[in-house]
């Protein structure tokens, strides 16, 4: 495991990272990472989730300090961390999430935090439009940024980088929120930048993009730089192999719960119409900020565990949230046992029988200052209370006990506030809350994020158990491929559309990765469409 630098033209490195280490607690996020970027070079940086990309981005942007090692600009040590002004003269980052202030104009955003104390509006505007003209962009400097599209906001961020004279631009997942045509235009801009001698560090999950515009590619895996090579010398398989590493070739393991032939017990005699389908989603479209959906249809049968996966922006989370009633959608419909579920109303979806394990437990999963038992039973207060609506704490604790013991939830007692628990136990509270109301469908979104390995196994197997023993369906929306081992089927989303579906566990990890990147695999999976058609 060497930390090789780019064997680029010697002495001309504009940005150099040498032996950088970064720890977070016991996790070594970066281990002796080296990287070198020359003027006019476009270097792709790829790696799976958790490989250390974001840590490296934050170090390169001057936002956090490495524990060891050095960042060098033009051969000199980089400015002090926090001295953002001097840092920006060398490298400017266009983050995945827009750093534009919507209420301010384009020109103000371009010069935000820079320039003299007294604002000279005329100079600011003329310099902004000068840079726009020079690079062939046409956004009026006085336009308020809230009126701009995502693509235009990105241009403003690029212009901001250029206005500071940055010689290197770091693009972090720049295509995540862009439509296909906009991606093509972005590539033109990147080529324009490199042609003018600007170095570009291009971070992306989409391998095909890296092949298209990067001369070189660097691969991070588990905090180490495992490969740095010209893209022309690599095949797609080589790149995937470098990303996946030791796990390469290993199957993602067999379906843990097996394939239940027949759900053990159906709770209600179903209506004739919905006899076989528990959940039926028909041409769902959404403009959600978490990822657009354009016409997603799928079915889940009783007792079935269906995985939905894809890249960050592919719409995996928005699909789960739309089905669970946690957010509204613009078209299509969701039916549970043949009955239409009211869109965008969580409590209606819950009454219909849809359980929801949200993506971000801190923001939606629990009420921090309330106790474990109270949180775990929050979905069933109506059942637990008497006819006057009174709710005895003892009754609540009794109702929570079987759930918490089933999930091996560790707490000081039913009254302990959830904020005092560890991340894994907090997630168990959220899962308990969902299981409590005996849903006929559970929508779980990245349920194992930030959870330790032991709890991860337990959470996943508890979901599979519920499916097998009660005949509930589970829709597991996740970008964590190892979670998909419990699934009977896996649906892969690319840019808000179903790209392909894997019906036969065990699922091949590499094939899944390839599919999430929007590349057609050579294998058994039936392709529903191609990435080329997506998003138009």
């Amino acid at each position, binding site marked *: 495991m060497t930390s090789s630098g780019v064997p680029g033209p010697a002495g001309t490195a504009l940005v150099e990272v040498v032996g950088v280490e970064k720890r977070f607690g016991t996790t070594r996020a970066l281990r002796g990472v080296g990287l070198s970027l020359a003027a006019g070079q476009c270097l792709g940086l790829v790696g799976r989730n958790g490989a250390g990309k974001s840590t490296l981005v934050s170090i390169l942007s001057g936002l956090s300090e490495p524990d060891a090692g050095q960042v060098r600009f033009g051969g000199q040590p980089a400015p002090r961390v926090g001295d953002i002004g001097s840092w920006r003269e060398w490298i400017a980052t266009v983050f995945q999430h827009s750093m534009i202030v919507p209420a301010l104009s384009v020109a103000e955003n371009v010069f935000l935090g820079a320039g003299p104390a007294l604002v000279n509006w005329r100079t600011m505007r003329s310099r902004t439009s000068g840079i726009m003209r020079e690079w062939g962009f046409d956004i009026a400097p006085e336009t308020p940024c809230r009126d701009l599209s995502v693509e235009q906001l990105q241009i403003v961020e690029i212009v901001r980088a250029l206005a500071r004279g940055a010689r290197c631009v770091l693009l972090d997942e720049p295509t995540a929120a862009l439509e296909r045509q906009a991606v093509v235009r972005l590539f033109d801009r990147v080529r324009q930048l490199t042609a003018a001698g600007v170095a570009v560090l291009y971070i992306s999950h989409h391998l095909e993009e890296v092949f298209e515009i990067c001369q070189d590619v660097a691969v991070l895996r588990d905090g180490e730089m495992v490969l740095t090579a010209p893209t022309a010398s690599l095949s797609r398989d080589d790149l995937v192999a470098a990303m996946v590493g030791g796990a390469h070739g290993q199957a993602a393991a067999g379906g843990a719960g097996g394939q239940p032939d027949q759900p053990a017990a159906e709770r209600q005699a179903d209506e004739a119409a919905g006899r076989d389908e528990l959940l039926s989603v028909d041409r769902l479209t959404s403009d959600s900020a978490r990822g657009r959906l354009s016409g997603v249809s799928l079915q889940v049968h009783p007792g079935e565990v269906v995985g939905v996966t894809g890249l960050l922006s592919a719409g995996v989370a928005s699909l789960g949230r739309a089905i669970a009633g946690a957010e509204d959608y613009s078209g299509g419909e969701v039916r549970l046992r043949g009955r239409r579920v009211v869109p965008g109303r*969580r*409590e209606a979806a819950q*009454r219909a029988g849809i359980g*929801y394990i949200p993506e971000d437990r801190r923001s939606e999963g629990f009420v921090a200052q*309330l*106790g474990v038992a109270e949180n775990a039973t929050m979905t069933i207060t109506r059942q*637990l209370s008497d006819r006057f609506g*009174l709710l005895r704490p003892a009754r609540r604790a009794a109702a929570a006990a079987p759930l918490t013991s089933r999930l091996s939830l560790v707490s000081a007692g039913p009254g302990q506030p959830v904020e005092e628990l560890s991340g894994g136990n907090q997630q168990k509270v959220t899962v308990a809350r969902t299981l409590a109301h005996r849903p006929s469908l559970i929508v779980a979104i990245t349920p194992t994020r930030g959870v330790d390995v032991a709890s991860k196994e337990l959470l996943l197997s508890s979901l599979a158990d519920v499916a097998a023993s009660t005949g509930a369906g589970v829709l597991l929306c996740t970008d964590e491929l190892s979670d998909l081992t419990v699934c009977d089927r896996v649906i892969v989303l690319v840019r808000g559309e179903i790209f392909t579906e894997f019906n036969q566990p065990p699922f091949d990890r590499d094939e899944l990765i390839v599919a999430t990147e929007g590349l057609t695999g050579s294998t058994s999976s039936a392709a529903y469409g191609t990435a080329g058609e997506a998003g138009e």
Partner: protein
Amino acid sequence: MIPNQAPKGPVRTADRPGGEGPVPTAAGGAVGSWLRATNVSVLREVALLPVLVVLIIVGAVVSPAFLTVSNFAGIGQQSSALGVVVVGEALILMIGGMDLSLEGTYGLAPMVAAWLIVPIAGYGDGLDLSPYLGIVILLAVGAAVGLVNGLLIVKARLNGFIVTLGMTIVLAGLQNGIVKAQTLFNLPGPFGYLGSASFGQVPVSLIVAVVIFILTGLFLRYHRTGRAIYAIGGNTAAARAAGVKVERVKLGVYVAGSVLAAVGGLMEAGRVSAVTGQQGYQEGIIFNVFAAAVIGGVSLKGGRGNMIGAASGVILLGIVQDILDLANVSNYWIEAIDGAVILFALVLARVVGGESTAEEK
């Protein structure tokens, strides 16, 4: 147990002069078991007790009239109207909202009711309605104001601060407008009963206020909707994800808060045997309402607070006011001292209450 018991004793001494005065009983006796049940920091709960003790000692030194049954009955009667409004505001604060217009409702609701029941000679409108019907109208005015606020804030999603600020001014304007800034005297007996009658030495308004505090406290602790209030204030998104009908509960709380403000207004009208144009907005009672709630540990960010704390905040303000009166502090200075004591109490509650009472950095 030591830190818990030490302040408990002095509360009992405060209890003695009032005889069977129910407020100190609620604040003192139930504290221990309540604490164990609610898992809140002991220190935080009793944060105000030492201050109350000091105030009582100060009061006893300032005037021999302080430690008398009649004085405490007076404090009780004066504080109960404020206390009932504090209950309403505390509920609204706990869902993470705020309502400045409770002071407007506190003035307008009794004014409308009195206007409809007092004869023309007393500046009424001449309908001469039954005083009992007047009380129903008073409650209806409260509910209507709360409903409008709630709809604007919860459904139309307007900013609660500015909606209720605007509403306050509208209500105060109506209060003076309908009677052309006259004061309505000669309120019929049943209408003034709540604020003026007493059982022996114990004012009826105090009994009613204590009952409202206790019932609201029990409701918050043991009722499904009460728990939903904590959940919504603590984390609205999580409550919604758990199927809580967030909008409905919030709307209900705005209505309940305004109805309680109307009841407080009725007590005040009965106490002074009149409805004046000043009642509420022009007296600026909303500052005292917020101060009592916050001193009592109700979080302006929502999700935290309880009726014991709110009650001790009200008692503290009542005692301070009483001491200032007894000490014959010049009218020119009374407001400055009143405000300074409130600020001091806030600092103290913050120091003793710990991080949970702190604002975000």
